[in-house]
């Protein structure tokens, strides 16, 4: 990046990075809770509820189960958290300063987005609880199910733009040629990736890993205090970062005030899907992603290759 070091630190820690993403992410979880509550004839929490939840958890005792490796157990939540902070920083910086982009940053973003799931898998396995290990294995299966589809879907705009492998490049391309969603191929890819981010966020119908009525809390069963808060914060930040990634790639980039509206649209869609579906089984999820979704996303990328 051509940005200087003090600015880098500011970007990562304060503005698009940690503090901003966390604040907007937690606010989004409030929107999720409030809208879900209204759909379900409930009142819902006040706007500050997600914030005080995190603050309360940070003040709680951090219990490490007997026979668990302390370092790994506490480091795994942080891995995913740092990855999301970096993704957010890269996304916003490339959206606002397209010249700061570097070739292949979209690949970096996709790899970094693996890490929260890997943190959950490793943390759940490390906790030494049968519920945790079942949850970790479910998360692993789910990841195997959706990652390929997500990759194909996100790469459809790359193909459609003639091989622009950078986020800044994609944003610039869309500024010149209109939204990616104008192409038939990208509409297909956008629908598929909306389903994939539902799974990446671990929301119904893909909350298979932490299904509370089946395996209590899955990978998080043994987590408490600050470590749990970091997991929750990561999930909240993902709820903000993943739609922004879709906006950057498909909907012309996240630099205009319209971004807020686009983000709210995607958020409301996620919430509606969450509230109108039961949780599916992990084998059904794998079949769902590997057959209909994969076929759709491959059709999308073929359409993009022939220039539609």
């Amino acid at each position, binding site marked *: 990046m051509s940005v200087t070091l003090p600015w880098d630190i500011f970007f990562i820690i304060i503005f698009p990075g940690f503090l901003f993403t966390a604040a907007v992410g937690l606010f989004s979880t409030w929107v999720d809770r409030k809208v879900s509550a209204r759909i379900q*004839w409930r009142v819902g929490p006040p706007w500050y509820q997600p914030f005080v939840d995190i603050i309360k958890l940070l003040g709680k005792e951090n219990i490490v189960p007997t026979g668990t490796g302390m370092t790994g157990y506490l480091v795994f939540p942080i891995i995913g958290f740092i990855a999301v902070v970096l993704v957010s920083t890269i996304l916003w910086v490339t959206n606002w300063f397209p010249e700061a982009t570097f070739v292949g940053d979209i690949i970096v973003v996709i790899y970094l987005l693996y890490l929260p799931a890997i943190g959950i898998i490793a943390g759940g396995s490390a906790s030494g609880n*049968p519920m945790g290990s079942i949850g970790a294995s479910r998360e692993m299966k789910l990841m195997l199910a959706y990652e390929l589809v997500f990759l194909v879907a996100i790469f459809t705009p790359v193909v459609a733009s003639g091989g622009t492998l950078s986020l800044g490049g994609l944003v610039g391309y869309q500024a010149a040629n209109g939204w990616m969603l104008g192409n038939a191929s990208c509409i297909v890819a956008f629908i598929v990736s909306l389903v994939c981010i539902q799974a990446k966020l671990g929301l*119904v119908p893909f909350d298979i890993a932490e299904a509370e*009525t*089946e395996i209590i809390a899955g990978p998080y069963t043994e987590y408490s205090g600050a470590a749990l808060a970091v997991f929750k914060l990561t999930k909240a930040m993902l709820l903000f970062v993943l739609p922004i990634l879709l906006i950057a790639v498909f909907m012309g980039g996240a630099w205009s005030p319209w971004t807020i509206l686009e983000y709210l649209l995607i958020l409301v869609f996620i919430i509606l899907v969450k509230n109108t*579906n*039961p*949780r599916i*089984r*992990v084998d059904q999820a794998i079949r769902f992603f590997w057959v209909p979704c994969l076929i759709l996303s491959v059709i999308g990328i073929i359409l993009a290759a022939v220039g539609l």
Partner: protein
Amino acid sequence: MTIIPIGPYHPSLEEPELFRLTVEGEKIVDCDWKTSYNHRGIERIAEGKTYDQCLFLVERVCGICSASHPIAFCNAVEDMAGIEIPERARYIRSIIAELERLHSHLLWFGLAGHYIGYNTVWMWAWRYREPILYLFEKITGNRQSYAMMKVGGVRQDIKDEDLPDIMKVVDDLEPKLNMFIGVALDDPVLAARMKGVGKFSREDAINYCVVGPTARAAGIDMDVRRDEPYAAYDRVDWKVILGESGDVLSQAVVRLLELLESVKIIRQCLREMPHGPISVEVPEILPGEGIGREEAPRGECFHYVRSDGGNCPVRLKIRAPTYNNIPTYKVRVIGETISDATIILASIDPCYSCTERMIRVVEQGRETMGWSDLLTLSQEKTKRIMREMGFNEEDAFRGLRI
């Protein structure tokens, strides 16, 4: 091989019980279960209460079936004493029992939704259950534990000015029920989670002596309301709903369609209810025994009463429907995945505390494992745990007489 415990404390269960599922990956290969964490000794308490007091006791066997157990008990005592209750009391009993079925099945449908992660169904079902509870409060004074039944009739009359309100609540509910039936039958995702899950053949159902909606979902044509009519069920027109495959979906559909039948029964009862006395004088109860059966929302509720001519029963035997239904869990759950374990368990609408039994061990005329033996066992275990944790065991019992 991993063992996944469901219980004794689990977010999806509101009563203490333990199901140990042996799993290979996600697949369940074996299941072991244990209940009776919460034995309340209701049958024993009943032996020291008069018949009128017993009614309030059996009402508290189950928090949901608080009309079914009293009606079964009344049926038993009336059978023993040969009492014929007045017509109006029959209709009132039917109305209360069917209103209870409405709220119980709606509660179940909501919980079933919650168990498969469909919280919107949960909240909506419970919201539409709420007017029925208001209705209960209006008619009886209580949302739960209505205290309506009495040997020889009912304790309170349903006032004529309340009839339009009851009719209105029932009328408002019917389209909502149709909506739920549509959801259960048409939603493909719901079908993916419920169809073919926890299958249970007709033969298995007969071998396990299952009762209620669980039996009817497997295609067994049985319903106490029709087979041995009590209250006003032989005076109104309704039909028994049957399923075919015995899976979770057919259990849900049977319950939901039963709700429409309940609505039908309540409407007819409200229209045809005659005026007149609501109870008769109970004659002196002679030595003898009686059996009372009642179709509770979960299945047949069975009460047996024996009298020696005194004012208290010398024996009261209660069998709640879950007692028959719960052993089927093992055959239904083996071969399914962990994801389906809770919904299969929930599909029989279990009520564990109604089912609790205890064992008396009598060796050579002396009762072992009585109160003092159990107390000693418990204290020894506490001491052992204290020793293992490195505490001074004397500290634990300081000031306590062992």
